[in-house]
């Protein structure tokens, strides 16, 4: 294969076949994918969780991961947030003509590795190569599917009065890492993306505690936005204890320079767990037993104070709204 990706590699012709067999099958190989049918044949049954995400992160390689591993983690996590065991994944690559083949191989290898680690098979895929300038380097879509193992499945509208709000670790690491790679921003932070597959931990959690009401990963928009979505859907108020929210000093420092709030920065390896008060200690115990949840802690409670809103109880003991942003200035973190 040539040292750059050419349009021919997305043509459906011989060049496409070479790319698929020599690169994708090589790194993703499994019986179903290898058949190269229009669709994969899967055997599943009962209640399924299905989720999709497109990944357009810039830069495509960043401390702690790359677009390939991120594309696995993002989707595996979304499936697992439903109390499901992620089983199968599809991937759709859109590649810019001229992308170094070595970069593509690194990404595909990283994706294969992440999928094996998460225990999911990539069973079907699609590759498009578009003319130079029609896409920025590479975008990846992944769609995942898994078996839901609890009934009812955790859901964003299932938070209830009195529920404890837990977070699995520090917030803002991924968002600040991406910012730190931006040219022109003259800061350096010893921090890396938290991008990780949470499914093994999440499955353990719901198996032992099927009482979990909500699980959700605070990705784009960060903790604040995700909690606002949940309080909005569940019509409860989340009272958050600012001092309890774990934020790395490096992330705090980076945010102070840029005038940003870490609660709005993206995470790619954290989850919120909302469940009845009485199970919160047990949940924390399970979370902390896993390296991906070792900094887990309780950060708030669902109350009836301001239904639909998130209220931050500040370090001073004051209260203020933690609203949803209109948009954000920081593009392409996922």
């Amino acid at each position, binding site marked *: 294969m040539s040292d750059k990706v050419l349009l021919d590699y997305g043509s459906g012709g011989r060049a496409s076949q070479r790319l698929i067999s020599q690169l994708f099958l090589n790194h993703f190989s499994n019986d179903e994918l290898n058949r190269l049918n229009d669709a994969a044949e899967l055997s599943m049954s009962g209640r399924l969780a299905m989720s999709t995400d497109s990944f357009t992160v810039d830069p495509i390689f960043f401390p702690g991961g790359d677009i390939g591993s991120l594309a696995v983690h993002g989707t595996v996590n979304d499936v697992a947030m439903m109390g499901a065991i992620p089983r199968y994944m599809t991937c759709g690559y859109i590649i810019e003509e001229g992308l170094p083949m070595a970069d593509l191989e690194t990404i595909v290898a990283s994706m294969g590795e992440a999928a094996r680690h998460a225990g999911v098979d990539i069973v079907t895929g699609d590759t498009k190569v578009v003319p130079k300038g029609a896409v920025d380097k590479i975008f990846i879509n992944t769609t995942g599917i898994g078996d839901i193992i609890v009934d009812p499945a955790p859901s964003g509208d299932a938070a209830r009065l009195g529920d404890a709000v837990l977070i699995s670790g520090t917030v803002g690491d991924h968002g600040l890492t991406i910012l730190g790679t931006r040219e*022109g*921003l*003259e800061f350096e932070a010893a921090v890396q993306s938290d991008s990780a597959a949470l499914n093994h931990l999440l499955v353990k959690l719901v198996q032992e505690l099927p009482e979990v009401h909500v699980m959700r990963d605070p990705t784009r928009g960060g903790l604040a936005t995700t909690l606002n979505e949940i309080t909005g859907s569940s019509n409860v108020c989340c009272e958050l204890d*600012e001092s309890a929210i774990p934020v790395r000093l490096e992330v705090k420092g980076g945010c102070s*320079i*840029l005038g940003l709030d870490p609660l709005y920065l993206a995470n790619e390896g954290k989850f919120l767990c909302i469940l009845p008060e009485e199970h919160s200690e047990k949940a924390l115990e399970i979370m902390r037993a896993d390296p991906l949840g070792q900094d887990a802690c309780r950060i708030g409670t669902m109350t009836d104070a*301001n239904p639909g*809103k998130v*209220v*931050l*109880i*500040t*370090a*001073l*003991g*004051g*209260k*203020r*709204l933690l*609203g949803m942003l*209109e*948009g954000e*200035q920081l593009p392409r973190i996922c």
Partner: protein
Amino acid sequence: MSFEFLEKFRDPELCRKMLDRMEAELESDLRFMEVCGTHTVAIFQSGLRSLLPKKIVHLSGPGCPVCVTHESEVNAFLDLAANERVIMATFGDLMRVPGDNGRNLKKAVADGARVKVVYSPFDTLKLAKENPDDLVVFIGVGFETTAPTIAATMKMARQQGIKNLRILCFHKTVPLALDALLSDEAINVDGFILPGHVSAIIGTKPYEFIAEKYNKSAVVTGFEPLDILQSLNQMIDWRKKGEAHVVNNYTRIVGENGNTKAVEIMYEVFEPIDALWRGIGLIPGSGLEIRAEWEEFDAKKEFGITIEDCAPLKGCKCGDILKGIKQPDECPLFGKPCTPANPVGPCMVSTEGSCAAYYKYKLD
């Protein structure tokens, strides 16, 4: 020194005591106004506002440089952004500020304008070098804190022989604006929290007129909760005694004469000019303009840009809010239709505007 030490200025315990003292000492409403958007945000974000005694009335003055950037100035930079030769460079704060017909820089980018958000005006040097065939225009907005950084950038550009950098200079200075505000009879403020970082540059002397001419108190204050609480307690004491003072509480950063080198650099490049303030109007001598000796950088000259006053906004109560006559949520437009996503008046424009802070942080 250490960061742990600096964190003492946020000590919750001491804050609580300050608040208790305040509650105990207050005899009647104390109406105070901060003149810096960073204070506005600090007071809301820390939760301090929710802890202040009812008798403390918190008002926000014309303290956000983005909010007071005049409609005509906004339209001028939006027009310029549409120019194909131009790469606009700007602080992120200006990206959502609306011009006429709902235009803003975010939409300009969507329409094909090249707009680059910079963290420091210094970044424009690199941008200019990387785009030798284009004109990089930096939108010079900000008070005395910021103006020297632009002046220094211009000096560096001249030194490096950069020919394709322009500054669209809309800088404004704080003391004369305060004077204009205070000269309004309707003003109803007991004391001022003065902008700490503006003062780091200009020192404390330019504010002395506040006590002398208007018999009001004013404190140069830092941005930590204790800084603010301490200043409020002082104002309570002074009012009890019937006194009015201008004092510097932010001595760790602010010297009496400020940063003379920065002031020098600022006035080497800029000179005072009459300026239009959004929501306020013309304030003689309250703006900065690029001196003739530096006109090679002057985007206004290059593009023949002039700034004219225009009719005030219908229904917007910003005038009353800036003067402390009304609170944001007393404006009938607040929240509907006026929101940060769709601001009607200047106070909703920037995240540091008083209406925007109310909208974003205040619990009902």
